[in-house]
């Protein structure tokens, strides 16, 4: 008899299916992909100040929106949709097939990565056209950007899957998850300049990945001279990698050990 398909090839298959399903839900496509662009349009139009020589608030905010997009399309979307899939019985049905859990997770990671890339392109395009954002020319900045997106979306995916065990039902999931994300955005320097926040907020934010992702994105999209304006007077690139890796490990651990396929 032929061997059963590998977990990886089934993961790719799941990813294709997830993208197809996502693309057919027009409301969620519009909400997930365009909402950050709308926010950028609003904040960019209201706050036109220059926060440092050669750095506008729109640029600062764009970096934050790209970072928080990683949290929105990954963590938030998964922690809300997985409990719904569980309520519908979809997860239990999958559990009854030879498809392994890892394929399901890989499929989600593919979906998140693809929607993330689309969202980043929209944000960048919009920022360049309307808010005078300039793309970095230094190749090193693009390298930083690439690993930030890869590590950030992996981290966000793993934590979203792990957090999906928290909401008791699909209906209540949004009420549990959304406030956490919004508060994190306020604390992590997405809507406000991070150094202007009270120091206790800064300290709380420093525990979570979003603060490090926003700071990382600033290191890509703001001039290097701005590093001296950060709390640590530097971009703290090494520390960012370590903290994201720790959260990725935590996310994977709980996803693998605690994932719930069934309501009870």
């Amino acid at each position, binding site marked *: *008899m*032929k*061997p*059963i*398909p590998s977990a990886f090839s*089934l993961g790719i*298959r799941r990813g294709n*299916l997830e993208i*197809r*399903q996502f693309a*057919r*839900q027009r409301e969620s496509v519009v909400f997930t992909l365009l909402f950050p662009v709308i926010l950028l349009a609003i904040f960019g139009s209201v706050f036109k100040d220059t926060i440092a020589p050669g750095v506008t608030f729109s640029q600062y905010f764009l970096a934050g929106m790209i970072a928080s997009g990683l949290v929105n399309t990954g963590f938030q979307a998964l922690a809300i949709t997985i409990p719904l*899939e569980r309520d*519908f*019985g*979809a997860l*239990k*049905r999958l*559990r*009854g*097939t*030879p*498809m*392994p859990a890892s394929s399901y997770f890989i499929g989600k990671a593919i979906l998140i990565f693809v929607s993330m890339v689309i969202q980043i392109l929209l944000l960048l395009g919009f920022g360049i056209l309307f808010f005078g954002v300039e793309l970095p020319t230094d190749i090193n900045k693009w390298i930083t950007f690439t690993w930030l997106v890869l590590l950030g979306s992996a981290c966000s995916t793993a934590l979203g899957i792990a957090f999906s065990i928290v909401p008791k039902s699909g209906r209540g999931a949004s009420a549990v998850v959304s406030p956490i994300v919004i508060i994190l955005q306020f604390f992590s320097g997405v809507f406000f300049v991070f150094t202007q926040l009270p120091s206790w907020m800064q300290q709380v934010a420093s525990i979570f990945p979003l603060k490090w992702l926003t700071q990382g994105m600033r290191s890509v999209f703001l001039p290097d001279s701005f590093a001296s304006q950060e709390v640590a007077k530097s971009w703290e690139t090494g520390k960012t990698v370590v903290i994201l890796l720790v959260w990725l490990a935590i996310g994977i651990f709980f996803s693998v050990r605690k994932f719930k396929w*069934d309501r009870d």
Partner: protein
Amino acid sequence: MSLIEVKGLKKSYGDTHAVRGVDLEIAQGEIFSLLGPNGAGKTTTVEILEGFRTRDSGTVSVLGFDPQTRGHESRQWRNRIGIVLQSSADAGDLTVLETIDHFSGYYSNPRAVDEVIHSVGLIEKENALIRTLSGGQRRRLDVALGIIGNPELLFLDEPTTGFDPEARRSFWALIQKLRSDGTTILLTTHYLDEAEALADRVAVINNGVIIEVSTPAELGGRATSQATVAWRDGEIIKSELSDNPTELVATLSSRFGGEVPELVVSRPSLEDIYLEMIGGTHETNS
């Protein structure tokens, strides 16, 4: 050869003893139906066999494998079974064809997708989005996903709930065809006529134990129980319980000089027997 072997199976949830020592043997190629009221331990037993729940004690072998084992062996085992769960409402934005085709990719030796769509009668709906299907059509899709992997053993949980009579008949024909292809089927159902039409053997479970295992015709002494003979005698319908209904009919026939008006000979239905069986032990539970 037994495909499923269960000995001394027990499972409790806190103080509730859902399953209190179940023994079962299901042979290869048979349709075996598990009957029992809600809360009798039916679902728990089946979910343990399906590998969805762990047991407290006892031994369980399904296709020679312990369902609560995890890891790669479990994938090999799931490759050989099919499960049709009670309800699911997922993937409304995919078409019937896309969904069945996707699931076929999970198995090493799946059935042909178009053949499966044909056998569950969803040909005209194959390009319809799942959320546009009726309840009965959705149920047939569930069955299609259960059999796409060409399973040796199929679990069917309340498969025809919400079907109209015609759809049920064509569904029964499908199940009988699967059996004739060699698939062993474990059917749980609330419909006694369904068990009677399909099952080779039935087991009645109540209060966490199996009360009886038998063929539908013989359950609860049904085959040897007294028959009711009824006929019209002038203005009234008469009926009589008899151990020897043939003799009684012959007597009546000679009395009426041939044809007995409105003659009916009946034995208790499976439902009568079943209700009697679970009724006797039901009060102690509630």
